[in-house]
């Protein structure tokens, strides 16, 4: 673990000089990044650029959760992993890359499948959580745990040629369940494995997740109406920002009278889990 610092080292002043000259970051913002603990859940297509930029920009402590190993079919989008890492643990491979980028970043690895039995314990103590996962069950799990722990959640997703980004459980905004109280039918959920994904699409969304994280950590995230950013490779105007609802008083987990006060069985809730192959329907 890292002691909180109240000033930057000479090495940090040199390394982060291009961020220190901007009033929106400055020494204060850089120290906030330095003293922050960020948990990235998933070291795949979204987690790769997100973790790399957070480490590069000076986040002091970065936690990584993933239980998977690197596969050849990951490499076109998961740029934190090298071809030589195929077969190895993703979090160990990711840590190696992050150490190369910024040896001062304290990388904590959790080589585990996040589930209801370990999520609160793993997530407790972080300041913010990045949802860079790849399935609905884990998304509800991460959300509910963030609500229970009072942590903002930077949620990104990408499939095929589209991506979505939003900051949840933050400043009176909605949580994931406020937006989606009922999980989608399992056979409507497309995964990158069966529907495909263009490598750079999660790249764009993962970078934007790192950006939103910096905004939250440095106190520069607008408290105005919550937004959802939609990205589409094919559209002439590839981005669209949409105003979202606020927190729902009726929400089962963050509402005024929550019915969910401890983590539940998310695989049963969603009808499919993190390890399931999607039925061969080829629809989204």
């Amino acid at each position, binding site marked *: 673990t890292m002691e909180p610092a109240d000033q930057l080292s000479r090495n940090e002043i040199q390394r982060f000089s291009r961020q220190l000259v901007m009033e929106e970051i400055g020494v204060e913002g850089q120290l906030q990044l330095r003293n922050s603990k960020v948990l990235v859940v*998933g070291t*795949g*297509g*979204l*987690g790769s650029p997100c973790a790399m930029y957070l480490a590069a920009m000076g986040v002091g402590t970065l936690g990584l959760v993933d239980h998977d190993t690197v596969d050849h079919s990951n490499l076109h989008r998961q740029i934190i992993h090298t071809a030589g890492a195929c077969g190895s643990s993703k979090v160990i491979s990711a840590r190696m890359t992050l150490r190369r980028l910024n040896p001062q970043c304290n990388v904590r690895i959790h080589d585990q499948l996040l589930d209801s039995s370990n999520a609160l314990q793993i997530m407790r103590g972080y300041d913010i959580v990045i949802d*860079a*996962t*790849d*399935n*609905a069950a884990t*998304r509800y799990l991460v959300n509910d745990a963030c609500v229970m722990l009072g942590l903002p959640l930077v949620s*990104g*997703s*990408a*499939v*095929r040629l*589209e*991506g*979505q980004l939003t900051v949840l459980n933050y400043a009176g905004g909605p949580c994931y369940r406020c*937006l*989606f*109280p*009922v*999980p*989608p*039918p399992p*056979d*409507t*959920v*497309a*995964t*990158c494995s069966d*529907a495909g*994904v263009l490598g750079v699409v*999660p790249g764009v*969304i993962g970078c934007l997740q790192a950006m939103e994280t910096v905004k939250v950590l440095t106190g520069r995230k607008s408290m105005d109406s919550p937004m*959802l950013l*939609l990205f*589409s490779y*094919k*559209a*002439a*105007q590839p981005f*669209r920002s*949409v*105003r*979202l*609802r606020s927190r*729902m008083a009726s929400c089962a987990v963050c509402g005024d009278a929550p019915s969910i006060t401890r983590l539940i069985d998310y695989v049963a809730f969603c009808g499919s889990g993190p390890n399931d192959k999607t039925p061969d329907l080829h*629809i*989204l």
Partner: protein
Amino acid sequence: MADTTEKETPKLLINVEFSDGLETLIKDEVLKKREGRSCAQIKLEETYGGSPATIRHLAEYIRDNCIKSKPELFYDKDGVRPGILVLINNDDWELFEEDGIDKHDYKLENNADVVFISTLHGG
């Protein structure tokens, strides 16, 4: 005043877009590509049984007329199925839900823009 004597019943023209995978559910002849997006212009009656046309009428029209197969992947017994986000004039439809009135009952105006988006879970 609507003139209902001889002419066609008045119609509403709704600009609909299907996004993030939902477009694959829709019949090809319905979809028009507009600047790389999958769009459809849908004509609704101004009223159904005397009540103004709502999002529910639009969604039922799509279910009955525009879906290739498996309409339940768009609309289940309660309405637009879970996991589909609806935007009305580029805002989350939940912003239009009023106390005690379901968002499906939002009244559509002529030329309204409605987007149906599938939530993405991959990464």
